[in-house]
């Protein structure tokens, strides 16, 4: 049973974590997420006491974004690296340094997870384009990013095939290590061949659809929706307090002198008392239905907007919103 368990865990090993569709951050603007990740990475520079506080706040953020278990798994994968670093720093320098270095690595891992588990390479490409990266490079970057997991799969396939025919045997002891390194060509050569081949196929596919066209006009345009402002503001100066509004105790976030009530009311389609504005989740970039930008207009018109974080709609899968089953909030 334990080997069975191990095997399943090994199967979950992916270079980049899978997308977490249920996360509210999944629909946030990629630029905001990029800024958020950068901001969080900078927090790594804080001294020990504040790093610990930042880590706690940060865990709260990850929990809200449904990413805590995933981030924990990613950190757990690094346990040996962390342990060795911790021991080395402690022995060679001090316990304090050991702690702070470990905390920093944990935070960076979490930040990476936060970005990658909620953003597709396509969305990241839009963010890079907005940052005035040349289209060619932004596009190549997104393709490379997409290929990371494919690379992992291919590597597993090569490993299996070479093991099956006895062309690759992992070195059994220290003396066999050198021979083992030399035998690595049995894995690296096919890996290079497969990667080159795939890259070429993609190149052809891109050019066959006019990749080099000077007339290209971007279709998707990033638009900051309600949640994005919230995240940006929250990053600038979060002040979390509670207020009684409607029938329940609701957390309020104040930024830029305005207050927002966050209400996680579960199912979106149901009508409940209070304002009925969708938080804008799923609106951004959804140019097939611009009239759905209710969240955005709500932001423009009101100082006190009740945000309902629609979790259920994402739990129903990415196709649900597309099929016209967009959350019913705007009808309210």
């Amino acid at each position, binding site marked *: 049973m334990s080997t069975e368990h191990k095997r399943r865990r090994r199967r979950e090993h992916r270079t980049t974590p899978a997308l977490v569709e249920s996360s509210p951050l999944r629909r946030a603007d990629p630029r905001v997420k990029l800024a958020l990740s950068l901001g969080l990475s900078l927090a790594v520079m804080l001294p020990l006491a504040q790093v610990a506080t930042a880590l706690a706040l940060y865990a709260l953020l990850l929990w809200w974004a449904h990413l805590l278990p995933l981030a924990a798994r990613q950190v757990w994968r690094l346990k040996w690296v962390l342990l060795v670093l911790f021991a080395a720093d402690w022995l060679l320098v001090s316990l304090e340094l050991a702690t702070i270095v470990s905390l920093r690595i944990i935070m960076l891992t979490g930040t990476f997870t936060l970005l990658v588990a909620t953003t597709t390479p396509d969305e990241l490409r839009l963010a890079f384009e907005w940052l005035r990266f040349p289209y060619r490079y932004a596009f190549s970057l997104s393709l490379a990013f997409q290929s990371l997991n494919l690379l992992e799969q291919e590597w597993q*396939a090569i490993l299996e095939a070479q093991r*099956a025919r006895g*062309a690759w045997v992992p070195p059994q002891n220290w003396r066999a290590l050198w021979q083992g390194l030399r035998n690595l060509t*049995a894995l690296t050569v*096919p890996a290079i*061949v497969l990667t080159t081949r795939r890259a070429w196929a993609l190149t052809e596919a891109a050019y066959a*659809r006019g990749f080099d066209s000077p007339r290209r006009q971007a279709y998707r345009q990033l638009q900051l929706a309600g949640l994005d402002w919230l995240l940006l503001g929250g990053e600038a100066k979060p002040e979390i307090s509670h207020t009684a509004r409607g029938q329940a105790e609701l957390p309020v976030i104040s930024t830029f002198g305005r207050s927002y009530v966050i209400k996680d009311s579960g199912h979106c389609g149901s009508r409940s008392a209070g304002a009925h504005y969708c938080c804008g989740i799923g609106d951004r970039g959804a140019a097939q239905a611009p009239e759905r930008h209710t969240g955005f207009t709500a932001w423009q018109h009101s100082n006190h907007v009740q945000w309902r974080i629609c979790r259920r709609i994402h739990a129903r899968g990415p196709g649900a919103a597309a099929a016209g089953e967009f959350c019913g909030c705007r009808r309210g």
Partner: protein
Amino acid sequence: MKNANSTAILRAQEVAYRYAGNGHTLPPVSLEVAAGACLAITGASGCGKSTLARCLTGLIPHLYRGEMNGAVWIEDLRTAMTPLWQLSERAGMVFQNPAAQMLATTTENELIFGLENLGLARAEIATRLEDVLAQFGLAALRKRDPRSLSGGEQQRLALASMMSRRPAVLVLDEPFSMLDGDAAADLTAALAGLAAQGMAIVACEHRLEWLELLPGLRTLHLTSPTTPPETARAMPPPAQKRAPFTLEVRGLSVRRDDTEVLHNLDFCAHGGEVVAIVGRNGAGKTTLLRALAGLQRAEGEIVVGGESPDLGMVFQNPDVQLFNASVREEILYRIATPDREHYAWLLSALGLERYEDTPPLLLSEGEKKRLALATVLMRQPRDGILLDEPALGQDDGHKSRLLRLARALADAGQMVILTTHDLALAAQADRLLLLADGHIIAEGTPAAVLEDTDACRRAGMRTPERRAGGER
């Protein structure tokens, strides 16, 4: 949309090509295709079909550094003189492997990529996007990752991503080679619809059984200048004989990521038999082979005379295992005391004698598949071999050679188990196992199993004849 005048949309005049590195060449070809016409370009593997397809769409000479002679005109543009992006607006190209041409992370974005490059206004892109999603039945898949789609859906998406750009010519490179029966029927119907709307279609394909359903199909046969025609000589069985044995599989179940891929399979196979496992893409064929090879953790029993079987597994893609500097080194890699006699037999049986000193990566796809097979057979697995989709994308010459080899091994008492969705190949086996959704739904001699139309349909084994017959 287009006026049906007789002038050709696509014209090639004595177009010939020589690749830069390895000296493969395409001999001069001339052709003309008018609006609404369908042309099939046939020929054995390595005859230059894919090269010609790339010449016709302008990918050659723009992306390749070899030497091109002759000229190709798309509408009134000569390909060598026109930037690739202008050509791509007039001639669409669908590549052989649908999975390898996906550029985006959702179906929608995949389509938008091509539309953006046309420089269209956003409103126009939105309209075309909806049109093409509806036309190709992709609306329900619009937010899905293209890599998570089935082979047939991916092929539809690849076609849609070209058609949304409204080219005048569509060139397809072996579009049927990766598809099972249902997906092939889908694609044929889509192509017939496009031809009726006035699209000029050129398909490079060595399997004509589906293309023949297109109205007014013309064919152009290419002959290869380099590879000599296959000689159908009988193959002597290997020297060692294996005593009769039986492989017993009882209660075999495989779970993967909490879904059951194979459900409680029971079957027997005997030494001296060629068994074909047939089913649509994703039915669990490869998983079954991996379980038999001991590469897949599974519940249940797989035994040969009380012990676990020793079956060599040959994987679908030979590129995952070829890495040595020559065919000889590849076959003999890590074999302490090679059996010279067996080696010589392998070379002649698989038609690799001429290539002993050739680097494996310079071989054709079919030859690479045979070399991968040789590397497994050289280890002389006791009970036989497992072949995963050995015929996928291969021409008849390769298939007949493969069958003769399988027969020779079976004559020596070994067992050959292969997976396929190629009906012609399956019909040549001694026994068929029809697999659908992880269950064996029919088992027996090919003649008996293929009688069972309902089971065949469930296993995705639609054939053009049957479909055409049903519609008439």
